[in-house]
């Protein structure tokens, strides 16, 4: 340092020291920045650990193996108040995945329908779709959740005056009670038949595509596959003596017992998230379709393609290239927004883990870190999948 600083900065060319070469300097600056950043991280971690120790606050992840002692209203895996906090973590995560997964499916379907409806030549349909988009996407999601939960909940009857739905189902303020299929001995054969049909279908699809490429002959894949996937399990079901019984919900005491319950919290959250996100997806779909030049439609028609064919083979593949990237962000948003569940009592990840577990253990830093890691991971996985899908759909330039 002392030797190099002798060379005056102003006349630049005089010194031969490597410190005056721009590339060397760049490296030095970057190393310095990295060191400073590393030190900052080290300092933060150290400071936190130090403070926790001094304040006698427990740290570490041992708590995950301790008994939780609380219950959760919806569990996709076996869980009770004698399970561990680690188990509660999975219960919450699965509940979040459930609502996010269903929400993405519903929002996508609804969004596509509304997006296309906005472009409809029918004046009323187009205006209705437009009104839907403008109203729903401009109201805060939390408000909409409260609406679905409290406004709709209040209109539902108590268990004793339930709406009776066909097929032994009931709907009341406590949720939607559905009969639950109970597999009996021999049901594995039905399941095996289903999987066999699925594998067979994939084979047929591959064979049909190959044949069309070689001979130009088309094969009705969809029809065959449907017959296989429905028919084979049905055949197995009847030949092995109908190995399936149903558990029907019955009113006993305060509530219905038996069957499957779809909680009103889940329904409200699902409605709220799907309707809200669908309004954004509708706009994305509309933009995607409008983004395909009109000449493409005209060219398809000139080739003699039917309306449906031109939509399926020409318009949609090109629109998809515009739609998919922003669609990914909407999926990410929906997943992240599902954390608003805590306001209406749906036991999602944030409610169970970042709520109850955090409070009972008091280990805020660990729990928040895990929560952030989980959401980051979910988002990254969604992104990776959608990017892969996008690459598949992208225009192949030859």
């Amino acid at each position, binding site marked *: 340092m002392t030797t190099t600083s002798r060379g005056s*900065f102003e006349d630049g060319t005089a010194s031969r020291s490597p410190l005056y070469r721009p590339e060397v300097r760049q490296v030095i600056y970057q190393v310095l920045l990295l060191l400073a950043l590393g030190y900052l991280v080290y300092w933060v971690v150290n400071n936190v650990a130090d403070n926790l120790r001094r304040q006698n606050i427990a740290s570490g992840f041992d708590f995950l193996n301790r008994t939780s002692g609380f219950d959760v209203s919806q569990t996709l895996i076996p869980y009770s108040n004698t399970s561990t906090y680690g188990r509660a973590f999975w219960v919450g995560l699965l509940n979040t995945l459930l609502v996010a997964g269903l929400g993405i499916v519903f929002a996508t379907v609804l969004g596509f329908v509304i997006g296309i409806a906005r472009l409809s030549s029918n004046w009323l349909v187009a205006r209705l779709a437009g009104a839907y988009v403008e109203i729903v996407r401009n109201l805060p999601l939390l408000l909409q959740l409260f609406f679905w939960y409290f406004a709709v909940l209040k209109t539902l009857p108590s268990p004793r005056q339930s709406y009776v739905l066909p097929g032994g189902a009931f709907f009341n303020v406590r949720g939607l009670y559905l009969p639950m299929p109970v597999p009996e001995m021999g049901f594995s054969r039905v399941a095996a038949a289903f999987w066999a049909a699925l594998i067979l279908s994939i084979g047929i699809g591959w064979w049909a595509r190959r044949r069309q490429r070689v001979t130009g002959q088309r094969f009705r894949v969809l029809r065959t596959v449907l017959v296989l996937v429905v028919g084979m399990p049905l055949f197995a079901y009847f030949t092995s003596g109908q190995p399936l019984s149903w558990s029907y919900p019955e009113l006993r005491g305060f509530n219905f017992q038996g069957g499957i319950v779809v909680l009103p919290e889940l329904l409200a959250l699902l409605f709220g998230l799907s309707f809200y996100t669908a309004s954004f997806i509708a706009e994305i779909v509309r933009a995607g379709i409008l983004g395909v030049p009109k000449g493409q439609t005209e060219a398809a028609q000139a080739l003699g393609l039917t309306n449906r064919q031109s939509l399926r083979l020409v318009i949609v593949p090109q629109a998809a290239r515009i739609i998919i990237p922003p669609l990914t962000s909407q999926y990410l948003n929906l997943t992240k927004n599902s954390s608003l569940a805590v*306001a209406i009592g749906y036991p999602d990840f944030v409610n169970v883990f970042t709520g109850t577990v955090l409070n009972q253990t008091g280990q805020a830093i660990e729990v928040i870190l895990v929560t952030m890691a989980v959401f980051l991971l979910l988002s990254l996985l969604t992104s990776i999948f959608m990017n892969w899908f996008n690459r598949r759909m992208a225009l192949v330039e030859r």
Partner: protein
Amino acid sequence: MKHLARGVFWVAAMMVAGAGVVEAQQKTLDTVKARGQLVCGVNVGLAGFSAADDKGVWSGLDVAYCKAIAAAVLGDAGKVRYVATTTKERFTALQSRELDVLARNTTWTLQRDSQQGLAFVGVNYYDGQGFIVKKSAGVKTGKELSGATVCVQTGTTTELNLADFFRSNNLQYKTLVFDKADEALKAYQADRCDSYTTDASGLYSVRLQMAKPDEHMVLPDVISKEPLGPVVRQDDFQWFTIVKWVHFALINAEEAGVTQANVDQMLTSTVPDIKRLLGKEGDFGKGIGLDNEWAYRMIKQVGNYAEVFERNVGAGSRIKIDRGLNKLWSKGGIQYAPPIR
């Protein structure tokens, strides 16, 4: 070279600054005095314990404790900034020094004492968890709640007691957990739940807020011990002692018969207990880092424990909770304070 030197300087400066932050930990008493204000964590809204009226004026049993501490430490019960905290936020806010003290109907447990760096100074309200149900449900005791759905607020001992109660009695139940008590209550009123559960004091308080209080009843079962009290951090023993003795002094004042109204006449009292309490004998205030008139100011501005209790949750309030366990030990309750001597 100038650039390089500047970069090195900033990195070095950052390191020094970082080291400085670690060292700077002031005593809570000094911080409060320097700020001229006590920052007190209270409940967002629980009538009788801490609730703000339409003008933003706070009142309640817990709020009175904030005022008492401010009167003892700063000389003015009005020098308090109230921070409304939810069950979820309260401990983090205290641990991270956002609050000087948390007076928020918080249950004293071993877990909180041992793993969260908290120190409970005493019990300002002996409570127990109960259930509220609709009279139309025809339930008379907690054991008849088999199969019921129960609404509860997250982050409370309530959630755990609930599970314990149903588990130990082999009863089936469903729980529904909400972030805020308000939403849990709304769900109960919308008939989503058969029962709402929290500390009995809270049940009486929310029953009053309902559209038709007569349609609801609090079950006689008390399923847990809920000693509620003010909390401070473990790392400041001086501050812990001050808040602890504010609580004890309020009880001792009741025991000695010193009230807000007669405290001035009591200054001339010849009873040794009272002389020590009001700073006429001994240097007890100075011993805890205050002056000797600390308890006098507190009683003058806030009252003794009985007055605070009756005014906020007892006979003089809308909630009208019987003092029960919270009577003085000499009158059949278990409120008891070590002597000032």
